[in-house]
């Protein structure tokens, strides 16, 4: 524990950000090889334990932002630091360690279709090489949290969309991430399931995890009264505490 804390401490000292800041983006631009830049001069600071909605039209750069935070993509210019890692400079072999503190869920769930619910979640623990004993303890408890304890033997195709997203969520959470990234997690779900997933995300956030959710769901954003960052054509046009979904004109 001592050693880990020291490493984290050193990292924090290296960056100029306040100690409580877990995501720092300053003047970030991202341009794909074709077309206009997807993100322009983005400045975003997120503290440990925050719940943040990212909203905006289709094509405004929300997914690009998530991919930069995941280090699936690299920035074109600017500065990006996530959990103490300078993502413009991180070495390829350090990326796995970085990602072990991140949980991700996507609109299309991305489950392993040939494995049952239990194995899909255990998969995440196998990858970070947890012992069988820990896996047998952690997987059932996380499945209980997302409300799927009774369905651990089902294959993904036997589940509803909402249930599949819960499995994906359980997989993202079982490794106890510091930050949870969700790119349109309710995009394929009906209103009832959407609400249930959002409530789960809120509950996870209350447990101390920083949660960042990309969504199109106006009602939920307006109802939940969280911080809302609005993107438009690659630019942050608003960033409000207890914000609402800004209507486009």
């Amino acid at each position, binding site marked *: 524990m001592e050693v880990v804390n020291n490493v984290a401490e050193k990292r924090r000292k290296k960056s100029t950000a306040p100690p409580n800041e877990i995501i720092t983006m300053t003047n970030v631009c991202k341009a794909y090889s074709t077309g206009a830049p997807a993100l322009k001069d983005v400045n975003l600071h997120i503290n440990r334990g925050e719940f943040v909605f990212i909203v905006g039209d289709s094509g405004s750069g929300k997914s690009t932002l998530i991919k930069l935070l995941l280090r699936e993509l690299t920035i074109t210019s600017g500065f990006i630091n996530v959990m103490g890692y300078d993502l413009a400079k991180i070495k390829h072999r350090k990326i796995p360690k970085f990602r*072990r503190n991140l949980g991700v869920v996507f609109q299309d769930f991305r489950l392993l279709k040939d494995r049952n619910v239990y194995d899909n979640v255990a998969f*995440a623990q196998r990858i*970070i*090489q947890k*012992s069988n004993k820990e896996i047998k303890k952690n997987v059932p408890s996380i499945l209980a949290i997302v409300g799927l304890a009774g369905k651990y033997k089902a294959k993904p195709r036997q589940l509803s969309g909402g249930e599949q997203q819960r499995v994906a969520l359980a997989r993202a959470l079982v490794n106890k991430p510091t930050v949870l990234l969700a790119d349109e997690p309710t995009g394929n779900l009906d209103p009832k399931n959407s609400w249930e997933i959002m409530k789960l995300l809120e509950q996870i956030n209350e447990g101390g995890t920083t949660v960042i959710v990309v969504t199109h769901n106006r009602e939920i954003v307006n109802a939940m009264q969280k911080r809302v960052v609005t993107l438009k054509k690659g630019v942050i046009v608003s960033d409000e505490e207890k914000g609402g979904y800004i209507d486009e004109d």
Partner: protein
Amino acid sequence: MRISSFFYTLRQGVRNLFRNKWFTLASIATISACLFLFGLFYAIVVNFQHIVRSAEEGVSVTVFFDEGIEDTRIQDIGESIRKRPEVANIIFISAEEAWDSFKKEYLGEYADGFTENPLADSANYEIYLNDVSMQSALVTYLEAMDGVRLVNRSELAATTLTGVNALIAYVSVGIIAILFAVSVFLISNTVTIGISVRKEEINIMKYIGATDFFVRSPFVIEGMMIGAIGASIPLGVIYTLYNIVLEYVLVRFPMLADLLSFLTVDEIFHVLIPVSLGIGVGIGFLGSIVTVRKHLRV
């Protein structure tokens, strides 16, 4: 790596084999076919070489001496011949021995009519070479020697055998090279298909924070197992086939057995087993590691 992680990886490798049954079967069939041809070819080539070598061993150069030569001079000549590197064996045949064997071979009972040895000057050295292609050089050397009257050689046999040997070497290298290229190409294709089927899984693994090593391992294990299975099948087939063919040839063509000496199946498999397994596992290993590497960047 933890023991439990190692077994997990191993299980995933085995699982991969069954998950993509048809690709697995295609890969195994490809490697099997290549290694079957390789094994067949190898068995034929080494037998040919063995036969050629036995034939070569029978090719000799005969050296006759000047009339009235001293025995000590004959011994000196023998000494300097023996020292030459291309000489495998040298045998002295005295005039009496030459006459005896001639009598036995050609005259039989009629030999009694001779009172003196008609082959008085036929004492000679029979020289056997370890490399037939060196025959001409040796003959030139022998002819220049003091006390040597005549050098007999079997020119035809020597050049033919040398030619056949070279031909076998070229053809075998050529065919093996082609087989290799074909199997590497096919394996790489098959592995690429297998990987692309599981591309999504690899992506998920990378998102969760799997190391490159952990992502690669099951695929590499899968590749190596395909290689090992792909090598074992043709080995078994060739083993059985070889024994059947050998027995058939020896029973149906007994005079061939006298003329040609075939290798036993054990002599062949002594080399063929490690080489086939090495090639099979090697191709599986290389094919999978190269292909997984290509799909790893997320």
